[in-house]
């Protein structure tokens, strides 16, 4: 049974696995069933996504979690107010290093166990060894300055006593070029989503040393960004889209659909990469390099654990990291913009008619949940995943000044 399309929506996406919920919403007919004619347009850079949403080519887009904040805060060359009514999933990234760096880390106690603290300590010791012999800084790549990748890599390094501003160089490389740049020696390591970590392992040119879900459990990654003016003028279209994405996300989470989803994403119009290379992100079973393997629980979560809820605490954590690394000044005005960017109210309004369980709060204390915890209103059951940071720190969005102050003082070692 399908309705005739009453809402036309154009969405931009980047060829990355975490566009899956958006892609499946169209391809599996979830959008059509909500009366949405969803047009998908693949892009080649986040800058293009930002520009096209700003001038109205796209209504909504697959975006890096911090990107709508950067747009709304005016940090980008062509900025427009962007809101986040939906998260496209949790987790999904890894940190991968070259064989040479892995050798250096292993000599300082790193083991193929993905333990962020152990790996970070070994990397720090290796970096200071190199510095003592006057060797140039290691160069790590991330996909974009305003990305979860950049902020989680910096968080990990800083928490392990490595100053990301002075003891390492961080550059930008597009995801599909990461493995090649590593193999060619242009970079020494990187933080990126799958399949671009497994690609380096498969090529024999990289080792995965840690993963996002171990740095910060069930942490935010990509989101749906909507042009604020469009969202305000088209509340019904947006709500219909969010319901379609909700059904699509549930389908993507179902283990029984993994091979179908991998085959869909493998198509040339989406990722154009073989289905087999899509499986690690779905199963969490990773080859780390050198024959080591690990299965990471909740490696990528497209639906469960309230994965689609746009927590204000996620946006505010990104904001604290923007402040920490000098992207923006911490002022009441900027804080207010960051607080208003993620919109759980829009998510709730759209999903309420479905009678599904919804979190009662708009924000949570990140790092407070040590184990899966049932929550939720409306009678139906909802389980939140643990949300701890690997260094045991807690981010309380109500104590944002103290959090920012504590990180500032901890940044520069003397």
């Amino acid at each position, binding site marked *: 049974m399908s309705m005739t399309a009453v809402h036309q929506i154009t969405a931009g996406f980047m060829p990355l696995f975490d566009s899956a919920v958006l892609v499946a919403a169209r391809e599996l007919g979830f959008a059509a069933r909500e009366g949405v004619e969803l047009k998908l347009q693949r892009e*080649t*850079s*986040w*800058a*293009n996504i930002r*520009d*096209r949403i700003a*001038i109205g*080519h796209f209504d909504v887009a697959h975006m890096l979690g911090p990107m709508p904040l950067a747009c709304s805060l005016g940090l980008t*060359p*062509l900025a427009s107010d962007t809101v986040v009514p939906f998260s496209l999933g949790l987790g999904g990234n890894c940190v991968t290093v070259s064989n040479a760096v892995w050798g250096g880390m292993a000599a300082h106690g790193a083991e193929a166990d993905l333990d962020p603290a152990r790996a970070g300590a070994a990397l720090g010791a290796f970096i200071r060894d190199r510095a003592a012999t006057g060797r140039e800084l290691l160069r790590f790549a991330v*996909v*974009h*300055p305003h990305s979860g990748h950049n902020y989680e890599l910096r968080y990990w390094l800083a928490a392990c006593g490595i100053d990301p501003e002075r003891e390492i160089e961080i*550059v*930008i*490389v*597009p995801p*599909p*070029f990461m493995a090649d740049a590593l193999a060619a020696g*242009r970079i020494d390591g990187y933080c990126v989503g799958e399949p671009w970590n497994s690609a380096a392992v498969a090529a024999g040119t990289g080792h995965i040393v840690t993963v996002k879900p171990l740095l910060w459990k069930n942490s935010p990654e990509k989101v749906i960004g909507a042009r604020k003016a469009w969202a305000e003028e088209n509340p019904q279209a947006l709500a219909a889209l969010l319901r379609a994405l909700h059904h699509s996300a549930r389908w993507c989470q179902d283990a029984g659909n993994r091979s179908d989803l991998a085959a869909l994403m493998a198509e040339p119009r989406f990722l154009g990469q073989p289905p087999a290379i899509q499986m690690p992100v779905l199963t969490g079973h990773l080859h780390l390099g050198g024959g080591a393997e690990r299965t990471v629980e909740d490696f990528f979560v497209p639906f469960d654990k309230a994965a689609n809820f746009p927590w204000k605490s996620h946006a505010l954590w990104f904001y604290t990291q923007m402040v920490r690394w000098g992207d923006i000044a911490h002022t009441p005005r900027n804080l207010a913009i960051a607080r208003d960017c993620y919109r759980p109210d829009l998510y709730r309004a759209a999903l309420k008619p479905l009678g599904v369980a919804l979190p009662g709060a708009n924000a949570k204390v990140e790092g407070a949940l040590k184990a899966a915890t049932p929550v939720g209103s409306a009678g139906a059951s909802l389980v939140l995943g643990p949300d701890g940071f690997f260094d045991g720190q807690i981010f309380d969005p109500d104590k944002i000044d103290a959090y920012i102050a504590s990180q500032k003082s901890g940044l520069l070692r003397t």
Partner: protein
Amino acid sequence: MVRSPLAVLVIDENRIRASIIEAGLREAGHERVTIIHDVIGIARRIAEIEPDVIVIDLENPNRDMLESMFQLSRAVRRPIAMFVDRSDKASIEAAVDAGVSAYVVDGLRQERVKPILDMAVSRFNAFSRMARELEEVRGELENRKVIDRAKGILMKSRGLSEEAAYTLLRKTAMNQNRKISDIAQSLVTAAGLLGPMGDE
């Protein structure tokens, strides 16, 4: 006061398009134009060139890298903004529609930069038109080849003259409300499946 000529950097992996833009800029009197096709080692090049205006095609997957370099590194002397005036929405839309993005160092006056951007936009549009026409010609040639092969199959298998073979294709296409090239393609595919007839 004599104004120093603007240094313009064009970053485009498409060599033909880059040279079309370069020619346009030179015709307009811009002597300090540099073209870069490959972004590896580009930071050093930019530091040497010290561009006032940078033009990049939107298809370039390295846009994020380049943009962060303009904003964060010391490769460019002064901060760079996209276009000159953010409020000039029409220009921005025209550029994005044409597939161009442009970055301009802070402090340049709009009237100095606008002609450069307009030039880039019109040359990009001209190039897209050319590419589209070329694509159409290519498609036309492909169609003609398939029709020739289909005619050959009909002539061989049914002993028809070339003209009769073509008439048969045309009539079938008309009856089924499809293009001749589609009918021809179906025939070629079917012949290939059926064996020795379609042995190519």
